[in-house]
């Protein structure tokens, strides 16, 4: 034991990092330089790591510590940096309330009453702010989707909205703006619900401090941008595309869709492919490919619907950030105005998006 302590001192003297004395973190990257260490250093460190790993396995994983347990921690400075990082001005009291959870308040009251101090803590929690913020995020997301996807039926808008406001998406957003260290909650490591609640409360706090306009831009910049690179047709597909296409063409007064086989190959093999085209009154609308005739027919109908809704693979790129400046008023207008549902969809009633 004494020998180990002495070697540790020698490690320090030779200027090694204090990695073994730091609380365990998942990754610590060292910008390495050329260092020539004595022969015994590597084997010693190897042995220390081996013993540490044995202990960690016995305790069910490495010990984790909250960032606030470190000596270098200043909550006021962290709050200041948080608002500056996002480029927003918060009312500090509202922001602190938004980051305080009910579980934390309960834990603190319980702790004080255990000691013997029976005081009713005046700290507010973020329950109401979270509810308000959730409604705001939902509203702003819908406004953006309806303004950008003007020709899309309401079912797809709802699917995209559900994805953007899902727990997993909001949790990722919350984690990457630094909420993990700032939240006051009793659970550690923090659960997804806690992150989501904090983010919603922060949005509500921003709306209270700087106005709804800033909160809208905040949601557009952080939540809605997660739509980038996503294939929206993966989120939702009509259940009966052939029937839907027939209904839409009938409503528009056009001829019934006619499906014709365009190309095929490898019919008797495993890799059979059929290309089926949709025609209306001998005008080509779209074609789809599939392993069998039925699949190809369905894909062709889906392609035709995609062309009507302007959601093909070659559709226009989505606008984000500064590109939304011109359509902000339209976004506000469409926040409470749902798109046409699939059962009532008709191209005369939809306008093409200009952005």
């Amino acid at each position, binding site marked *: 034991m004494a020998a180990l302590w002495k070697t540790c001192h020698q490690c320090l003297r030779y*200027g090694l*990092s204090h*990695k073994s004395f730091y609380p365990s*973190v*998942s*990754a*610590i*990257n*060292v*910008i390495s*330089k050329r260092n020539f260490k004595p022969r015994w250093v590597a084997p010693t460190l190897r042995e220390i790591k081996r013993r540490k790993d044995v202990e960690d396995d016995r305790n069910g994983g490495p010990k984790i510590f909250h960032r606030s347990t470190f*000596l*270098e*921690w*200043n909550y006021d*400075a*962290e709050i*200041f*940096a*948080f608002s*500056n*990082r*996002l*480029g927003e001005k918060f009312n500090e009291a509202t922001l602190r309330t938004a980051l305080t959870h009910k579980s934390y308040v309960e834990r603190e009251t319980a702790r004080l009453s255990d000691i013997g101090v029976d005081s009713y803590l005046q700290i507010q929690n973020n329950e109401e702010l979270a509810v308000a913020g959730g409604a705001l995020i939902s509203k702003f997301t819908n406004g953006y989707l309806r303004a950008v996807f003007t020709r899309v039926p309401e079912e797809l808008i709802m699917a995209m909205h559900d994805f953007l406001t899902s727990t997993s998406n909001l949790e*990722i*957003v919350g*984690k*990457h*703006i*630094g909420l*993990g*260290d700032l939240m006051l909650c009793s659970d550690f490591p923090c659960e997804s619900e806690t992150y989501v609640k904090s983010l919603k409360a922060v949005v509500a706090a921003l709306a209270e401090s700087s106005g709804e306009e800033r909160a809208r831009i905040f949601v*557009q*910049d*952080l939540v*809605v*941008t*997660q739509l*980038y*690179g996503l294939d929206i047709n993966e989120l939702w597909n009509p259940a009966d595309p052939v029937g839907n296409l027939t209904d839409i063409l009938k409503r528009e007064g056009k001829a019934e869709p006619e499906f014709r*086989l*365009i*190309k095929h*190959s490898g019919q008797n093999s495993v890799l059979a492919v059929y*290309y089926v085209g949709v025609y209306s009154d001998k005008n080509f609308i779209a074609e789809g490919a599939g392993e069998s005739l039925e699949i190809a027919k369905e894909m062709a109908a889906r392609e035709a619907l995609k062309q009507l809704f302007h959601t093909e693979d*070659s559709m226009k*790129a989505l606008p*984000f*950030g500064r590109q939304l400046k011109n359509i902000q008023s339209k976004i506000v207008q469409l926040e409470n105005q749902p798109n046409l549902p699939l059962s009532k969809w008709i191209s005369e009633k939809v306008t093409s998006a200009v952005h």
Partner: protein
Amino acid sequence: MSNKHLFLPSGFIRTPLQNGLGRYIPQLQRITLKFCKNHGGSRGVRDFIETDLMEFAKTNPGTVVYLKPRRHRYPCMVAEYLNGEREYLSCHEFSRAEIQKWLSYMCTRSGIPVMRFRKYQHTDYPSIQGVWNPFTHQAPEINVAQFPHEILSKPVDNGPTATDQLIEIFKKTQIKDPVKPEH
């Protein structure tokens, strides 16, 4: 030519949370400068703290700067990023300018570990006219053609072959009316 000998991980350029698409959020969450108040190896760090640190803090209000004066310890900086990654750098015997340089390096990083970029460009639309498949440029007539077909059964006409061209050249070099030798 290959990069298999490198232990450096490789990948495509990416950014956490689509940073920059909506607004740019500086990814450096906090930076801790540890130094000794007395030892010579920390001189650069001490000079930096006395002169350039305030300006750095003012230009990066989104980053928290912690100072840890620790006796008999070598100077170092630990940068923590929003995605949870940490970077440790020993600043022993660094000059003030070097500290400034490395600090600005830490500021502009995203926290994603250093990796070899496989490509320096990226596009969301790799194909404009559509990816080629065997049915591209095929005549639609093959669908209802009866084989053997007088046009479609033959190989695609690509013009005269090299042999044909040589025969043509040879024929041109021949004298048209050979003069009969007079006896």
